[in-house]
């Protein structure tokens, strides 16, 4: 982190960049927030640790409109989103100075809460310079040691790898934290009967409060005006009127990002109701891989997406019924 701060100060000082987009230390051990730093002094509040899960690429849409370059800290998986945004002309590569920051997996405080940990006062072991094997947590109700892995966000268990897809320089070490099959959960659901699947999603989606956090956090959902906020499709934004409508919102959202979603996992991370929204995106990704060949959105900034291209021999929609 210190290296990152010093480098940022240098770049600010020599006017290479006009501002730094990173994280500011929070007032609890686990709640840093995304922030801009415009002076070297302000960087004293800069923090980068296991709780800096937010994907900052989407903020570069606004930052691209500002005067001068913005130094942005992107984790390996964030760089996929950035590439995809370049492809869609939503960010300006020339306005970004990308520091690829190291990542050893990002943490989910909800996971700690699920373990019954509450009254958190201090957490050690979450710095990038730590070995990130265990977390020591002090709480009002006593101390606990938790395996780092057990507190990781879902997305880190299916890590896309420690390589940055786009960057100007890299600071800090990364670790491939993958220890699960990306499609295992999708496959588990596919194996259920239609009735079980319906019930599973009904149960999950009935929790949805239409806060739109999933959409607003999603780097692929970069629409200036979402269809669900406009009258273009006569679609509701603020409340679901019937249970199909709440499904419709999530299906359409996943459909609109199909072939563009990099599987960054922000949707599931931000959902206040813990709905595994990434399952929708993964399902599309799995189908795309299977039907049209493996495709990773954001691996580059040029290729045509799977839904804006085709081959003469594509499978017919009937495959869905045939597959059973």
């Amino acid at each position, binding site marked *: 982190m210190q290296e990152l701060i010093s480098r940022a100060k240098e770049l600010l000082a020599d006017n290479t960049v006009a501002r730094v987009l990173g994280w500011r230390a929070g*007032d609890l051990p686990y*709640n840093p927030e995304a922030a801009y730093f415009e002076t070297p002094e302000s960087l004293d509040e800069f923090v980068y640790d296991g709780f800096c899960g937010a994907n900052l690429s989407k903020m570069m849409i606004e930052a691209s409109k500002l005067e001068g370059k913005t130094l942005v800290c992107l984790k390996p998986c964030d760089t996929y989103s950035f590439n995809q945004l370049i492809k869609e002309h939503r960010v300006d590569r020339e306005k970004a100075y990308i520091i690829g920051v190291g990542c050893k997996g990002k943490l989910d405080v909800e996971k700690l809460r699920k373990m019954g940990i509450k009254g958190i006062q201090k957490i050690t072991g979450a710095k990038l310079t730590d070995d990130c094997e265990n977390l020591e947590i002090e709480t009002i*109700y006593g101390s606990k040691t938790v395996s780092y892995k057990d507190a990781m966000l879902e997305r880190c268990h299916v890590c896309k790898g420690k390589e940055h897809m786009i960057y100007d320089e890299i600071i800090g070490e990364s670790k491939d934290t993958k220890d699960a099959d990306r499609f295992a959960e999708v496959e588990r659901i596919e194996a259920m009967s239609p009735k079980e699947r319906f019930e599973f999603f009904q149960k999950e989606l009935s929790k949805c409060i239409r806060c739109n956090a999933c959409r*607003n956090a999603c780097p692929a959902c970069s629409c200036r005006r979402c269809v669900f906020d406009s009258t273009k499709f006569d679609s509701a934004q603020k409340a679901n*009127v019937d249970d199909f409508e709440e499904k419709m919102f999530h299906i359409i959202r996943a459909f609109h990002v199909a072939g563009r979603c990099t599987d960054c996992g922000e949707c599931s991370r931000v959902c*206040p109701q*813990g709905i595994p929204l990434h399952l929708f995106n993964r399902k599309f990704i799995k189908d795309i891989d299977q039907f049209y060949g493996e495709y990773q959105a954001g691996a580059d900034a040029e290729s045509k997406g799977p839904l804006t291209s085709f081959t003469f021999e594509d499978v017919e929609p009937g495959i869905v019924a045939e597959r059973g």
Partner: protein
Amino acid sequence: MYKIKKENLKALFQMISEKQDLILPVKKAEQTNFALWTEDADVDLTTLKTVKSGKDAFFPQSETLYTCVRDGKKLSVEPEALREHPFVVFGMKACDVKGVEVLDKVFLSDPVDTFYAARREHGTIVAMACHEPEESCFCKVFGTDAADPVADVAVWMIGEELFWKAVTEKGNALTESVKELLQDADAADEEAVSKEKEAIRTIIEKLPYTHLSLEGWDGNATEEKFNSPVWNELYKPCLACGTCTFVCPTCQCYDIKDYDTGHGVKRYRCWDSCMYSDFTLMAGGNNRTTQLQRFRQRFMHKLVYFPANNDGMYSCVGCGRCVEKCPEALNIVKVIKAFEKQGGEKA
């Protein structure tokens, strides 16, 4: 005071729900929210904070106001019936109850919101003391005592028993209706409850936000706070999602919309969020066009405008849900602290 063994709670819930609807924290797909009790509901009284507060019981996320039915070229209007069936909300915390007090200020003052008033009239609140308060809690800042909730009935969950104290007339009536399941509490029980209260208060003193200062936040601070440059940076990570407003026990803004049923229209209202770009959008445009303005609106409303109109009452109760749920780790505490810090720097 009465008591009941934890193992008999199911029988208690059963008995309540025979005559009334019973709404209480139920775990579904790993999340706990207030929901209607059913035989097979996974009741969860240990999770301190339900994701959404219990305000839905009185002010649902969406509700029909009236229905227009079209028959040929004739239209008829059928107003939605007001709540008449009694119900019990079980397991609200002191802060949530305080939240209802805030809502009362809005919906029960003139002009009275009849839908809300009917629910308030027919609803009985059983509030539960907070056994183990958490780091995001700051109810004490707003004068709430989490150890001794003020509602129709107050309950404490200690060990294998639940202690029950009726506070109001409604509370007495409810107590009467389930009395056969309740045992009288003795002096030792009273002692246990006092100890529990003490323990809760001790923990609360240790919580990081308990001593948050609200100095400078009152109904007279409009100009100073509104024009502060602090907002310029503060709002930036805000996603403009509605999480904070939808989990908040006091947010009361709603939108009114029409749903085309194919044979007419249902006019319904649903929660709105001041974080949304079309909040208060009118035919002539929007008076808040930037996220900065919308973000500022939320906190100014909670800490300045509301107290200005309601004898100094804040419309934040310190439940800490926004602290836990904001996807970008922004919240009202950070706002208050940012102003405090800026003030300190100035001085």
